[in-house]
């Protein structure tokens, strides 16, 4: 049956969904509506290789327009500002009407903004999309002292890149460790040491009281009355799902669009995928919201299958990475519920991994190493986690014993 399928949001989840639908359904019309006038592109390099000029804009696109044309996927740059779920219609700012049979919402997430009580809100920069990355790249070129508010992944990746561009970087983090929400302190401390060795200043346990601008220089007042002088301010303090368009509709929202394991929302024929979803994960038997490359891709693919009528549960074990300087950090599983931690290795040159176990079953791991040193073991951990494997602790502890053995035994 030929349907009109609309994908609202032209990011990674949207493009993977579109191509997956086409693989399973050669008949239907597929149209991506994107607020950004850019084909879907990879975001991880924005804070790293793009700032460092190792990758340019053309290197970031997932696919050329020819690929989309060949697969008969329409892409339109348009700002949608009203949704009528009852009549299955979307309305643009210019009052164009788009009618769908099935809708996928993949609108992603927005940067949380600092709320400053003076008129300096526009003086703080954020990095979530290509336009913002271009602005930061251009603006920092003649600046020296850069302050980054927020010691999470994005802030630290920007700090790493700007340090490599010979900037004097200060990172201010409200918590008592970097990447506090999800990374073990031991790993956070190793990352912090590398930043300090490379000349970055890391300030923990401090809150911003105020930012003042004097003669083009900013003074950041902290809650211990200390003052950081800086030429440029960037904030990376988290994100919120992009759901503003749906706030006065019947769509069920709760920290994002609530979906089941099939990417179905509370409204029939409306699906959602990627950062914007608070989705049910059948393996963990609970809802969660994730923001990562792997999730955007796999969740988009899963939504695409379901829209095309191939009923598929989303069961991916979460995995994410962060690259800072020559370090590669990887995290797999959900590591907030454990009764034992096992450390493998103590030297980042060979990789350091902390495994999280509950009732002797492996639940996930976080690793840090030079380049790809932890990748294989983290990947194996994902596979072991997926199978609720009880593992031999001695093998985990001993870096000379390959973890491949554990999966081959499955």
């Amino acid at each position, binding site marked *: 049956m030929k349907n009109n399928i609309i994908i609202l949001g032209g990011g990674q989840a949207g493009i993977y969904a579109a191509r997956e639908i086409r693989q399973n359904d050669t008949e239907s019309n597929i149209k991506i509506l994107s607020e950004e006038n850019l084909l879907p592109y990879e975001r991880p390099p924005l804070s790293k290789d793009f700032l460092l000029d190792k990758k340019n804009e053309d290197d970031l696109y997932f696919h050329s327009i020819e690929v989309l044309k060949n697969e008969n996927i329409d892409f339109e740059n348009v700002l949608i500002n009203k949704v009528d779920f009852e009549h299955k219609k979307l309305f643009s700012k210019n009052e164009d009407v788009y009618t769908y049979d099935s809708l996928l919402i993949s609108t992603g997430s927005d940067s949380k903004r600092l709320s400053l009580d003076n008129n300096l809100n526009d003086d703080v920069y954020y990095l979530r999309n290509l336009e913002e990355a271009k602005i930061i790249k251009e603006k920092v070129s003649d600046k020296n002292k850069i302050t980054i508010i927020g010691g999470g992944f994005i802030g630290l990746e920007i700090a790493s890149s700007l340090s490599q561009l010979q900037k004097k970087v200060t990172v201010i983090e409200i918590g008592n460790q970097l990447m506090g929400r999800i990374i073990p302190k031991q790993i956070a401390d190793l990352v912090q040491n590398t930043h300090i060795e490379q000349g970055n200043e890391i300030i923990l346990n401090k809150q911003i009281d105020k930012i003042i601008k004097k003669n083009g220089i900013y003074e950041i007042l902290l809650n211990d009355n200390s003052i950081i002088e800086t030429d440029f301010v960037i904030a990376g303090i988290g994100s919120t799902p992009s759901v503003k368009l749906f706030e006065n509709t019947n769509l069920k929202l709760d920290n994002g669009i609530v979906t089941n394991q099939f990417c179905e929302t509370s409204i029939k024929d409306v699906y959602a995928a990627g950062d914007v979803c608070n989705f049910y994960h059948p393996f963990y038997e609970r809802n969660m919201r994730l923001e990562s490359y792997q999730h955007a891709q796999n969740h988009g693919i899963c939504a695409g299958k379901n829209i095309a009528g191939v009923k598929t549960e989303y069961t991916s074990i979460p995995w994410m990475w962060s690259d800072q300087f020559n370090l590669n950090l990887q995290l797999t599983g959900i590591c907030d519920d454990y009764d034992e931690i096992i450390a493998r290795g103590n030297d980042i040159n060979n990789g350091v991994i902390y495994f999280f176990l509950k009732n002797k079953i492996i639940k996930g791991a976080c690793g840090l190493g030079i380049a790809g040193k932890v*990748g294989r073991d983290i990947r194996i951990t994902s596979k072991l986690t997926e199978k609720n494997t009880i593992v031999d602790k001695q093998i985990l502890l001993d870096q000379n014993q*390959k973890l491949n053995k554990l999966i081959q035994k499955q």
Partner: protein
Amino acid sequence: MSEENWIEVGSTDSIEEEDLIRFDHQDKTFCVYRLTDGFYATDGICTHEAVHLEDGLVMDDEIECPMHQGIFNIKSGEALSPPACEDLKTYPVKVDNDKIFIKID
């Protein structure tokens, strides 16, 4: 094929099954794999970012990059999963008297 382009990598027992070793020759790095049906060779550096595939996971006929999980078919070099999109170069391999040789062009 001229004989001089076959470079000795090592003995066949230097690689466990479903595993790989890194092999450096002049200024290039290769990965040599032992799969269930024989030995294979590819470039040793991921086509996505400059990272050594020697730390990657070999599963069935695939090598997965340890840094960002791009996946390549070891036998054809085909990039199978993003972020890898450029294929990996492969090289002929032969075994002679329990020694592995790869043909570098």
